């Protein structure tokens, strides 16, 4: 159990550091240095973000299964084990980064970029981990057959669509569409909230909603 927890932690940190953070930094640089974004926030932009999430899901599935096939025997696992572990524990954070990057590139920087990515990544991780637990955990290794790939498809689609929905719900308005006072007020409220949480936790009180 401890080995599984350590493995999940290492896989998540590795995927975040190597696969997600460079894309996030590049998208942030582009979106903040550009004069104006190509699209306004609206139905078209939301649909394009969802479409990007679907394309990201297809890419994550192809990458996971392709890596498992190419490196067969290297890690000593069966093909189905390697493919399902990669889908469940390495793919979620990059999957959550796809709609974030698409949204920030298409319509400019959001009011809450960090919170929206964190929430989307948490939702994608939870979705994939639950799916792994109910579908694949403890099952014997076998060939990477079409039936396994057919089950992997709804798993990555669920994670991608849920993370895109979470990003769209949590990102807030585009910074360019807001007056500077509103942005400053939101950041001050966020700083005040985090400092209150720190004070409460230092005094041993609950740092939750109550």
């Amino acid at each position, binding site marked *: 159990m401890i080995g599984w927890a350590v493995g999940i932690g290492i896989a998540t940190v590795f995927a975040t550091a190597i696969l997600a953070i460079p894309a996030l930094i590049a998208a942030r640089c582009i979106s903040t240095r550009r004069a104006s974004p190509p699209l306004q926030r609206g*139905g078209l932009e*939301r*649909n394009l973000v*969802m479409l990007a999430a*679907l394309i990201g899901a297809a890419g994550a599935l192809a990458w996971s299964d392709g890596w498992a096939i190419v490196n067969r025997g290297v890690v000593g696992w069966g093909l189905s084990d390697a493919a399902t572990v990669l889908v469940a524990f390495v793919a979620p954070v990059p999957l959550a980064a796809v709609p974030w990057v698409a949204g920030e590139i298409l319509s400019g920087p959001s009011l809450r970029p960090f919170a929206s990515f964190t929430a989307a990544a948490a939702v994608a991780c939870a979705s994939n981990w639950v*799916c792994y637990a*109910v*579908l694949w955990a403890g099952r014997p290794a076998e060939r990477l057959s079409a039936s396994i790939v057919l*089950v992997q*498809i*709804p*798993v990555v*689609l*669920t994670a991608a*669509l*849920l993370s*895109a*929905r979470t990003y769209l719900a949590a990102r807030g308005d585009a910074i360019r569409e807001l007056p500077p006072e509103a942005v400053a007020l939101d950041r001050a409220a966020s700083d005040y909230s985090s400092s209150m949480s720190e004070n409460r936790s230092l005094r041993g009180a609950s740092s939750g909603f109550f």
Partner: protein
Amino acid sequence: MDRALRLARAALESSGDVGLALSISLIALRFLWIQARSSREGAM
């Protein structure tokens, strides 16, 4: 024409929800199938 465009737009905007519902349903069906198969093997 206008109605068809409205319908197409509504279908496009709800396709994410439909896809999500379909995906979760497929995962649930697969889980139920695994449970049924393992209980049948346990009984034999």
